[in-house]
């Protein structure tokens, strides 16, 4: 039987080496699929077709399975994020504290629906299913930084700061 040789890295972008490192650490085992996709997303910000193909080939996982996993889990994104990301928590505690109003006013302000990025690629508006900071509800994440007891004014202020940049 011929020994398996992993495919070459898609480009000489150094980030592929990090991705490859995760797979190597797991002995290119099939079960490292989710771990590897996590690495891809943390390196590139999202999973594109190219990346999913490369990971699937390297781990000898059918492309359908890799795509299935990438689309099954909410944490993985198949679209590039904007320069800034506003994530609004929609967990129960935040919902009780009126996070739906925050979301509605952010959607209105940016003119986009949740899950989308503004046309200029500046701001992505996302929602999260509970970030576990319920004691500080309502909670938003501005570029990953958690901010609690958020008011509509504070959130709009942040969005405006990003627009001006």
């Amino acid at each position, binding site marked *: 039987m011929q020994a398996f040789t992993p495919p070459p890295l898609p480009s000489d972008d150094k980030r592929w080496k990090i991705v490859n490192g995760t797979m190597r650490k797991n002995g290119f085992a099939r079960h490292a699929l989710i771990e590897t*996709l996590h690495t891809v997303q943390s390196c590139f910000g999202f999973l594109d077709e190219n990346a999913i193909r490369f990971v699937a080939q390297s781990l000898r996982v059918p492309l359908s399975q890799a795509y299935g996993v990438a689309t*099954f889990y909410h944490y993985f994104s198949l679209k590039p994020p904007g320069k800034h990301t506003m994530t609004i928590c929609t967990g*129960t505690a935040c919902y*009780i504290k009126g996070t739906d109003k925050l979301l509605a006013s952010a959607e209105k302000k940016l003119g986009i629906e949740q899950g989308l990025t503004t046309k200029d690629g500046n701001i992505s508006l996302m929602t*999260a*299913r509970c970030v*576990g900071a319920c*004691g500080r509800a309502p909670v938003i994440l501005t570029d990953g930084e958690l901010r609690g007891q958020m008011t509509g004014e504070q959130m709009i202020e942040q969005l405006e700061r990003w627009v001006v940049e």
Partner: protein
Amino acid sequence: MNLEELEQIAESTRLENSAFDHEINVCMGTGCLSQHSDKIRDALSTEVAASGKKAMVRRTGCMGLCAAGPLVLVDPDETLYQHVNAGHAASIVSSLGGEPVKSLQCNLREHFDDQVHVVLENSGHIDPERIEDYISRDGYKALVKALTEMEPKDVIKEITDSGLRGRGGGGYPTGLKWGTVAKASGDIKYVICNGDEGDPGAFMDRSVLESDPQRVLEGMAIAAYAVGASKGYIYVRAEYPLAVQRLQASLRDARRRGLLGHNICNTPFSFEVEIRLGAGAFVCGEETALIASIEGKRGQPKPRPPYPAVSGLWGKPTLINNVETFANIAPIIRNGAAWFSAMGSARSKGTKVFALTGKIKNTGLVEVPMGMSLRQIIEDIGGGVPDGHKFKAVQTGGPSGGCIPEELLDLGISYDALIGAGSMMGSGGMIVMDDTSCMVNVARFFVEFCMTESCGKCIPCRAGTAQMYTLLTRICSGDGTMADLDLLVDLCATIKETSLCGLGMSAPNPVLSTLRYFKDEYIEHIVHKRCPADVCAIQASVAVETEEVTA
């Protein structure tokens, strides 16, 4: 590592600590960190250095009272300061040894005095990234005791006798589960810690992993010894980066100290643990779905039996317990089953950690003995509903649970009592709602959650939750009919009976429990086209029409 070496580490840590007159503990859990408690710690360190006082500034995990954060606890006087910022550092440090800073002091004695801390005994008192801190508070004594003085079957007997039941929600007796895995045939077995806290509004597991990660590792190691496993996985949500980081540091420390790895404590027992990141799927809290996810697949559940205890990860016997369950193991082994079973109610032993959130004054994490009444938790410990609003319901069990109305507030907390009330213990979220919440809208919120989180494998859950959502949306927008209500009840029964896994089976619970206690609100929406809490946007034209009719 043996007991003497452990004692030596503990002793030298205590000695180091005793060189200080004061210990300033700064909460650096997710809640307080979001308010820059790291800067407070730095400011305090600078002030201490400048003052020349013998004080130690320590990073700790969650102190529980998130509402009053950032929190700083000064020991040995047990002075708790609330809403601290870096500017307060100078006054706190200069008050050491004298009168505490009155303006910052948090005087919520009843909030803390009514609690009993077992799982949270170290939270807020140790640096979660220093294994020595954990050892100095009796950490790893239980593991050493189990390995050197007890047979695996003795460990299982102790856990069985303690009456501990799974803290992830179902309440399955832990000892029984361990016994099944121990009896299962096979050389390779696995232990999995379920830290996929997908239940929105709950953050006990996050807090335990952030505040006292070694406790969870110790519990897992004892479990592995008892059931004969040598490999463990901790499945944590990727949304909890701090917990993951602290776990990684803890794994490193435990390996370095020989408390994980080969031949632990010079015995034949070897145990290694790996972290697996979840990727945002609520269904992965279900055992078989979680196993599929660790195997790198889509998190879809499988029919049981076979149970994971017989055929789990890669077809091998697998023990899965929740973070809080593992966190209870070390104290049980250390203090004995009788000590543990003395706490709690007849069929629910020990304590339970709850995440108290929503319309309540003291939001945060609390740990109380089982059997305590909901009223005591909400009114005394939680401080009641703020801003002059009226309590309406408390939601427990997350999307699988239900809403409990005021008339049942004297109910003592236990697995069985909550199920009897149409809710469930769940992982421990407790969300308080006041008169500004519409119960139909709340039911719709949870159904929407289950609809989007349904993995799609079985039809009752995939299609049923979507139909429930349509019906509830219709009622919320004022277009519902009484026939819709009957249809909803029918549908609930079908989904409950025919779904494949717990997600589907329990998805109707929020609807059924609100129908049971707040049917008048449904009727108000349907018949009078009115939302009593003024939450639902019932179209003006519909509302006006009925106004005219009633006028």
